[in-house]
C-alpha cells in the first residue's frame, strides 16, 4: 500500500509540466501566486491486508515573492477529505436507571474521514473567521443539522461531541507541520488515510495563504476502491443480495458438514 509514496518522487518532475488533472480551480484575483499540486496516483486500492495508507502530495508555488517566502510568510494547508454522508450524533441519558439514547441530531453531508496537514497550526495561519468561511479544519467544518432542531440551544454540544468523537476515533486527524518546503517553492505534504477508510471519491485540497490572507487553492480527486475479492464480495452483497445470502448459507453448510466428516469418529 505504500508503494505510491515512492512513486511520487518519480512523478515530481512531471508535476511542473503537466497541470493537475480535473482540478477545481479557485483563486483570489488580487494575487499573482499560483498553486500546483500532484499526487502519484488517482486511485488507491483496498486489498485484504489494507491497514491505512500515508499519502504524500507534492506541490509548487509559482509567481511567489522572494522576500516574503524567505520570511516564511507563505503558509500552506493540505486536506484529504473523505466521501460525504449524513452523520447522526446520539446522546444517552439515564432513564429508569439504564442508559438510553434519548436525543439525536443529524448533520448533513459531512466527510467520513478528514486528514489535515499544514505548515503550522492553522489557527496561527489565518484568522478563525477566514478559516471558518472556507471551512478548513475540523473546528471550522460546516456542520448543518438536518430537519427540526428546536431552539438550537443544544446545537453546540452536538457539534462538539461530533468533532471530539471523530478525532478520538482517528478518522479526523490534523498534523500541524505536516507540510514542509523542500526548496524555495516546492513543498511536500503528508496526509493519512485511516484503516477504516470509507471507499469512494476523496478530495485532496491545497490552500495557499500569504500573510493570513487566502491566495489560491487547488483540488484533486482521489478514488479509494476495493479491488479483487473485496470488490467482488461488496458488489455481490449489494447487487445480488439474495444469491449472496444463499452463498453465505451454502458456505456454512459445507463448513459444518465438512467438519463433521473430517472429525467423524469411526
Amino acid at each position, binding site marked *: 500500500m505504500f508503494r505510491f509514496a515512492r512513486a511520487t518522487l518519480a512523478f515530481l518532475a512531471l508535476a511542473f509540466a503537466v497541470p493537475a488533472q480535473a482540478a477545481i480551480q479557485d483563486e483570489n484575483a488580487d494575487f499573482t501566486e499560483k498553486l500546483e499540486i500532484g499526487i502519484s496516483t488517482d486511485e488507491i486500492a483496498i486489498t485484504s491486508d489494507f491497514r491505512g495508507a500515508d499519502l504524500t502530495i507534492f506541490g509548487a508555488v509559482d509567481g511567489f515573492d522572494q522576500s516574503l517566502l524567505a520570511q516564511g510568510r507563505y503558509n500552506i494547508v493540505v486536506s484529504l477529505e473523505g466521501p460525504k454522508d449524513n452523520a447522526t450524533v446520539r446522546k444517552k441519558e439515564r432513564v429508569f436507571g439504564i442508559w438510553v439514547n434519548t436525543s439525536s441530531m443529524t448533520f448533513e453531508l459531512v466527510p467520513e474521514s478528514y486528514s489535515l496537514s499544514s505548515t503550522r497550526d492553522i489557527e496561527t495561519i489565518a484568522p478563525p473567521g477566514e478559516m471558518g468561511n472556507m471551512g478548513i479544519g475540523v473546528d471550522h467544518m460546516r456542520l448543518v443539522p438536518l430537519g427540526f432542531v428546536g431552539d438550537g440551544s443544544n446545537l453546540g454540544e*452536538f457539534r462538539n461531541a461530533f468533532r471530539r468523537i471523530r478525532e478520538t476515533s482517528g478518522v479526523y486527524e490534523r498534523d500541524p507541520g505536516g507540510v514542509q518546503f523542500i526548496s524555495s517553492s516546492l513543498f511536500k505534504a503528508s496526509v493519512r488515510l485511516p484503516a477504516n477508510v470509507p471507499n469512494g471519491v476523496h478530495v485532496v485540497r491545497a490552500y495557499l495563504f500569504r500573510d493570513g490572507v487566502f491566495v489560491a487553492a487547488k483540488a484533486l480527486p482521489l478514488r479509494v476502491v476495493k479491488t479483487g475479492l473485496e470488490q467482488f464480495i461488496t458488489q455481490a452483497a449489494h447487487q445480488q443480495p439474495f444469491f449472496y445470502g444463499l452463498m453465505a448459507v451454502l458456505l456454512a453448510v459445507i463448513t459444518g458438514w465438512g467438519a463433521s466428516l473430517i472429525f467423524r469418529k469411526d
Partner: protein
Amino acid sequence: MTIYLPIAELSVNILIILGMGAAVGFLSGMFGVGGGFLITPLLIFYNIPPVVAVATGANQVVASSISGAITHFRRGTIDIKLGTVLLCGGLAGATVGVWLFSLLRRIGQLDLVISLLYVVLLSTVGGLMLWESITAMRKAAKNQATPLRRPGQHNWVHGLPLKMRFKKSKIYLSVIPVAGLGFCIGVLTSVMGVGGGFIMVPAMIYLLRIPTNVVVGTSLFQIIFVSAYTVIVQASTNYTVDIVLAFVLMIAGVIGAQYGVRVGQKLRGEQLRALLALLVLAVGIRLAIELVIPPKDVYSVVSAGFGF
C-alpha cells in the same frame, strides 16, 4: 496479521477473530448450543458494527448447528416432525424479527433493545438453569434419581387444542405451544443473531416436557433452517452479512467445537448444565453492568451507511 472485512468495511486482526471463533466453538461443542449468544456480543465488543455482528453471527450459527445436527442425526436423536412444526413458527418469527430489526435500527434504539433482550433472557435462563442443576447435583450427592421429565405430570400446555402425535418423542401435544415457541425463537434469531438453543432447550424440556434425548438434536435441526433463513433475509434487506468474517469464525468454530464435544463427554450432565448456566449468567451480568454504569461517552456518532 490483519484482514479487511469487505462488508463491515474495516480491518481486523485475523488471530483475534480466529481465537473468538475457536473459544466459542469449544464452548458450543461442550454444551451443545449454537454459541450465537456469545459470538454476537464478542463481535460488538471488538468494534464490529452491531448490524453486521448480528447478521454474521446467524451465519456462523448455521455452520455450528449443522455440524452438531449431523451427529444427532446419525444417532437418531432428531424428531423431524416436531422440528418441522417448530420451524413453521420459527420462519414466521424470523420474518417479523427482521422487520422489527429494521424498524429499531431506524429509530436508533436497536442497541438498547439487543442489550435489554440479552440481559433479560440470559439472566433468566442462566438463573433457572443454575438453580435446577444445583438441585440436581444435591440430589445426586444423596444418590437420588433425578428424572428431568416427570411422566404423568401435566401443565396448562397440555390442555390446548390441535393436538398432534410426535412418534419419535413419544408425546401427544398441541401444535400451538410448539409453533409459538418456534415463533418466539425466530424473532430472537433475527433481532439478536442467536440460534436460540439456550432458550429452546430448557423450554422444550420444562414447558413442553419433551424427552431430553431428542431435545438438543431437534432444536439444532430447526435452528439450522431458521438461522439460514435469517441470513438470507438479512442479506437481502440490510446487506449486513460479512462472508469473510463469517468464514473465519466458522472455520475456527467447527474445529473448536470438536474439542469441546470431547471435554463435554467427560463431564456429568448436571455439572455441564451448571457450567453453562454460569456462563450464560456471566454474559448476562456483564451486559447488565454496561447498561447501568455511566457510559464513557454519552454521545455516539453513526454515519448513514451503517445507520445504527
